[in-house]
């Protein structure tokens, strides 16, 4: 059954192609090439390291070389020696980078080296940068230009700004730059595909973004945008609306990889042995047994970055969104399928059949290599999921979500601290406790905070303060002190009510979880992310209250399995939050619902026509934008939602991919000291 649904999903996907996000990649690529070509001759490229990952998704090094890039350096403090007279800096407009650049220029001047400097700022020019260059006295030596890198496609249906710090900048620093940049990037989408006919959203910052989007209209009017025909709406959710989801441990294959090994800009660091094909294998049929001894070697083995993408890795598409518990089974099945395919050569009798087989061989080898990789990767993950601390963490999460014996969960958290769990894990659990139960009793909270400070260092005090301060406020005492700012007093998160009204916790029966992706809650083994439920409130209203897959199963049981595709319901047109206004009102933050019509003249005729046409068979895309980042589980859940209906696909747009750890780390300003954790194997 599981295979039939997923196969069917794939076929429908080919029938109704999504918007071509590669267009965005090409735009990004061309803009960079143009920017580089504006500097004549060979050049040295100096890159801000945080941009290298995103850039790698847009352009290949060879293409850079092709456009005159002679050498590339990281933008780091210290002297820069360049053999070319042109130096091109490419960085985000951050003060620290600008200071390094100014320093290097001054050093060159002192050593009487003559260079021509170009500074390309991503994504746009900044007064701040020119001001600092001016303060440092080198403004006159630099030509400042911009490279407008916006949405980068990281999957067929996901585009990202790849801004790691978006969450912290918005909710801790109060720096709205990301919102503005997001609005610009969404405007670019509008320029490509037409106006979003409807913008629905939730959250104060989402509302801010929506205002920017609609207000910027006049300046882009020279292109006279009409309503989009391919996109039916934009759903904006700011991360603050659902802080619970990222705090939980992601349990899909891709999500768990991110949690335990870490995925950065779609790249994961893996042991080299997993990535290079083994020496010519004697019999291809042994694919099911990857070298088991490798586990002990891993500690010393060199690591290499691997790009997790469905483009070169066909199996990944099947695996990435599965709950980790069913990954093993799927891998097994894939291995068997592959073996049978290989066996095909024995059936080849005639030369023509043999030729056919050889033709398929390349694909089989790719599959083989990719199967090896994923088997190895899941073998890395399995031991990590068997540790006491991991399971204790999951248990605490589940209990907190069910509001079960909060005090004993708090003491369980204290135990975790005593056992030396990661700071990130502990902070995530503590915040989760605070949100789900409307704050932690003051005495218990102070005790836990003290434990954290003593165990991990007093330098985490600013982190704890940031978590408690508005507008974030995800680590609060209960009751709140009377003197706390009004923003906190009014904005209590109604988790318990939502759990019921949005059907967040699903009774999971083991066999259902195994075989059928039962509900979006499969991504957290029984808990449905609020963010995706909110999307369902707009785009799949039935899915919030009951389970479309279950109905399908019931129907499928009676009907012939081949008739299933026709049972899939046609997606309903977007009607804003209708039906869920009351629930939305209880969640803190503004609620947005804006209908955008095109230029006044033509819209009078076209709008009713278009809205009449839309509910018919015309497939459409709904853009979901996560302001402040989204998790891999949310992507997986949204893909699941997209599969339940005909006629609507989701394009997921985000400021970046986040996990609880990345959020905590960005706020604390401390990243993991020793890279990925798998040194513990």
């Amino acid at each position, binding site marked *: 059954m599981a295979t039939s649904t997923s196969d069917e999903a794939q076929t429908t996907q080919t029938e109704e192609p999504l918007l071509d996000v590669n267009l965005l990649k090409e735009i990004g690529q061309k803009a960079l090439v143009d920017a580089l070509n504006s500097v004549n001759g060979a050049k040295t490229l100096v890159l801000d390291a945080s941009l290298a990952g995103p850039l790698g998704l847009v352009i290949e090094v060879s293409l850079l070389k092709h456009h005159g890039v002679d050498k590339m350096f990281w933008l780091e403090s210290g002297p820069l020696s360049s053999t070319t007279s042109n130096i091109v800096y490419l960085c985000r407009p951050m003060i620290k980078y600008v200071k390094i650049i100014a320093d290097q220029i001054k050093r060159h001047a002192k050593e009487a080296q003559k260079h021509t400097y170009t500074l390309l700022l991503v994504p746009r020019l900044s007064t701040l940068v020119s001001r600092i260059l001016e303060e440092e006295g080198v403004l006159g030596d630099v030509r400042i230009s911009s490279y407008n890198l916006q949405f980068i496609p990281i999957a067929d249906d996901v585009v990202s700004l790849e801004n790691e710090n978006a969450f912290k900048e918005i909710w801790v620093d*109060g720096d709205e730059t990301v919102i503005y940049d997001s609005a610009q990037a969404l405007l670019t989408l509008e320029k490509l595909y037409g106006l979003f006919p409807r913008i629905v959203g939730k959250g104060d910052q989402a509302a801010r973004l929506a205002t920017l989007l609609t207000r910027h209209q006049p*300046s882009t009017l020279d292109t006279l945008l009409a309503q989009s025909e391919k996109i039916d709406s934009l759903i904006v959710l700011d991360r603050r609306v659902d802080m619970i989801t990222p705090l939980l441990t992601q349990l899909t294959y891709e999500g768990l990889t991110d949690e335990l090994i870490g995925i950065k800009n779609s790249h994961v660091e893996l042991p080299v042995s997993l990535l290079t094909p083994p020496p010519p294998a004697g019999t291809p049929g042994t694919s099911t047994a990857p070298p088991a001894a490798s586990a002990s070697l891993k500690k010393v083995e060199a690591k290499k970055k691997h790009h997790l993408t469905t483009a070169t890795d066909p199996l990944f598409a099947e695996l990435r969104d599965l709950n980790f518990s069913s990954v093993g089974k799927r891998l097994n099945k894939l291995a068997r399928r592959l073996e049978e395919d290989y066996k095909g050569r024995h059936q080849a009798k005639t030369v023509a059949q043999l030729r056919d087989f050889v033709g398929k061989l390349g694909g089989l080898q790719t599959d083989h290599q990719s199967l090896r990789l994923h088997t190895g990767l899941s073998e890395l993950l399995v031991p990590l999921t068997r540790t006491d601390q991991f399971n204790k963490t999951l248990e605490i999460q589940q209990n907190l979500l069910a509001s079960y014996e909060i005090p004993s969960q708090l003491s369980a958290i204290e135990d975790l601290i005593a056992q030396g769990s990661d700071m990130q894990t502990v902070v995530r659990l503590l915040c989760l406790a605070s949100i789900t139960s409307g704050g932690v009793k003051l005495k218990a909270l102070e005790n836990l905070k003290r434990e954290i*400070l*003593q165990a*991990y260092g007093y330098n985490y005090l600013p982190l704890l303060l940031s978590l408690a301060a508005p507008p974030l406020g995800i680590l609060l005492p209960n009751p709140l*002190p009377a003197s706390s700012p009004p923003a906190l007093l009014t904005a209590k998160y109604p988790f318990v009510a939502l759990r019921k009204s949005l059907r967040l916790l699903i009774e999971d029966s083991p066999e259902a979880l195994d075989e059928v992706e039962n509900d979006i809650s499969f991504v957290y083994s029984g808990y449905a992310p609020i963010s995706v439920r909110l999307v369902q409130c707009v785009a799949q209203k039935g899915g919030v209250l009951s389970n479309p897959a279950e109905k399908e199963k019931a129907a499928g049981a009676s009907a012939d399995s081949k008739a299933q595709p026709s049972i899939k319901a046609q997606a309903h047109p977007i009607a804003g939050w209708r039906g869920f206004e009351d629930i939305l009102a209880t969640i803190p933050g503004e609620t947005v619902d804006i209908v955008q019509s095109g230029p006044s003249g033509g819209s009078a005729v076209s709008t009713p026509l278009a809205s009449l046409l839309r509910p018919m068979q015309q497939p459409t895309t709904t853009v979901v934008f996560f302001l402040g980042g989204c998790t891999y589980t949310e992507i997986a859940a949204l893909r699941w939602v997209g599969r339940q209906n005909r006629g609507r696909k989701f394009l997921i747009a985000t400021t970046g991919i986040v996990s609880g750890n990345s959020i905590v780390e960005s706020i604390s300003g401390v990243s993991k000291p020793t890279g990925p954790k798998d040194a513990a194997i």
Partner: protein
Amino acid sequence: MSGERPSSRWQIMQDGKTFYKRQQLYSIPGKLPNLSDYIVAGCRYGGPIALMRDNTKLVALGRTTPAITKAQIQIYSPAGEGLLLFSWDQGKIIRFGWTADERLAILNEEGTYRLYDLQGDYQQHSLGNEAGEMGVIDARIHDNGLVALTGSLSLLEVKGWEGARPLTLANPDLSQPPNSWAVIPPDLNISRHVEVLLSVESTIFSVDNLESVDQRLSQGPFTHVSPSPDGKSLALLTFAGTLLVVSSDFQRTLAEFKTGDVASAEGSVNQVEWCGVDAILVTWDNLVVVVGPFGDTLEYSYSGPTFVVTEPDGVRILGPDVCDLIQKVPKSSASIFRPGSTSASAILYDAWESFSQRSPKADENIRSIRPELAAAVDECIEAAGQEWEPYWQRRLLNAAKFGRGFLDLHNPTDFVNMGQTLKVLNAVRFYEIGIPLTHLQYIYASPSHLITRLTARNMHLLALRISAYLSMKPDAVLKHWASAKILRSRPSATGTGAEADLGGDEDVCKLIVDKFEHLGGADVSYAEIAKRAWEVGRGGLATKLLDHEPRASDQVPLLLSMKEDRLALVKAVDSGDTDLVYHVLLHLHKRLPLGSFFRLIEDGGSQLAPASKLLQVYAREQNREMLRDFFYSDDRRVESAVLSLDEAASILDPASKITAVRAAQKFFSEDKDRGFESKMMDESARLLTAQQQLEKESDGKIVFFGLSVNETIRTCLVNGMAKRADKIKSDFKVPDKRFWYVKLQALISTTDFEGLDTFSKSKRSPIGYEPFVHQLVEAGHSKEALSYVVRCDSPRRADLYVECGEWRMAGKECKERGDKAKLDAIRQKCPNSLIAREFDQILASMK
């Protein structure tokens, strides 16, 4: 004249194939002064010419030429109408020329250049200090920039006309100024960068920003260097009068021609200009010669000195009496009007003429070209665009329309567009407007360019009519009109009192706004107009106009310059554009005293909160001193404390670090709600002091400073300072559980199993003994772990034995407890058959 076929005025080259035509654009007898006394610069696309007296030439003082000693620039339209006259009060003019948007760029010897529009307003930029010191001795000005030759014989390039910083091009190492030189503009080069061609001795140097290349020519020196309009070829004229045409990469010589062979030429050559891409125009005082690609010539004589301007599709000649356009007859015209042409379009035209004379030949003709009719129609439309006389335009369009009638399907867009375009072209060609634009030039330069040019001449009504006619937005015109309106309606300086002034403002504002709303120019930026008003000193009007501006980003800079600080900041915050907020903040920070700067932000309350946050982000990196003052002035204890902690983190010196932490503690203690934080910081400072002490005790061999409480305890234990560890535990009230874990891990890491044993027996373990087993097994000490299994709860023991790898013990344990289910479960997992068999035995025995 209209009756003659256009071809009657064509001249044919000696090769018998190529036709050239001289189209008289305007008759301008006596309107221009004698051009030979002047330095002249002409603007492309039918633009005006600028004249300046050539001081090297003697001139007879007479009635017509008043004696003026000061440099004076005169600008005439191609129809000879004076557009502007102004005098130059700066240093000696080196060069002037026209920009792509029809402004006159004038460069003086001090490296200063000004850009004059046709109203006489100018912007001034400079080439920088170097050029100022060395002096500029020559320059070349092209559409989108200029290249200057300095006194030190180096080349400076300016890109665009926004006052960009000049770039130094590669040094050609000249010892004396070149005989002549030219630039190929960037848009005509493959490299997209400007290329300079210098005639030095017998060769040419080509210079760009990377290198200077000697092209190794031997025919030089050259008096004229002239690149073709497409940048692919060069015309070079030697002192001996030989005209060479070479490809611009100098790989091929395309043609050679001796100007001395022109019999009627007298004196020296004035100009060498291109006519199209395959013919060159050489001018003498009274004579203009077109030299074709194979050395064929056509001569045209004039009654006096001429000035020629290369156009994309021909060349414009200004003589004493006429303004002419010489161009190769376009293919479409030639195909229709060439004597004896039998092309389909010629026949179509013929058919239409027959038809209009009611001759039956029409039908016969049409039939004969039936298959090519569509192409013939297109060609007639195209040819109509090439004609200057409305009479012929109309005839050709009629022929096209006639032909269209015989076609089932024909896209009428071209036909309609051509009709519209010609109407526009005829209007602007009218001598009072004086823009002799050809159809091709119009297409090249775009209709909006034409509109801009009209508004630059203050011809707003025509511009508005044309944009309405072409259904273009009227914004650009309206904007320009409003600016002009503001300038014109300047209230009289004699001062009729403030009230009269105000009334004027309101009237003008209302006039402008009404006009915009009436004409649908809703997208016009009011800010730009307001800026204009502010610049001419009408602040009141500027404020009024700004109120109508919907885009904050446009309002802000002006508000700042008007010193409307608070409003500017509010608008900037409102726009969501953080860069704009920074712009305002940095500007204000520079201008205002710190106190009032802070007050401005603090008084803004929640409305300006984002600005306050941004200021903090900026100051945290760049100006901590200011941030400290800012927090202090606003009584923000917590922020002050965090800032202090932030600094403590980066301080290495122990004493000052402790001081910083103490400072933070003090800040917290001043806020009554921050008792907890204050206490924690007190602990932190105490810990640091204790760590200092510990380091001293270990003679600085062990690093303690900056570790967490846990780490400090661990380090003590690892280094055999157990007493100290206990003291830290009690000083910081570390709970037993945590202490036991830390100590457990520390002892295991030093493999101190004896110590571990003593520790485990020191008192009843608050964490039980399972962690002992787990941690030991994890560290690879399964054997040592065994002794702790017995101390765990009995139901767990079997599993723990398995963990230690002691399967038999596990089996035994199960047997003792009689736990069959457990045994079964363990048997499932057992590693080899040997043990499995043993389990089976145990199982059997238990029955």
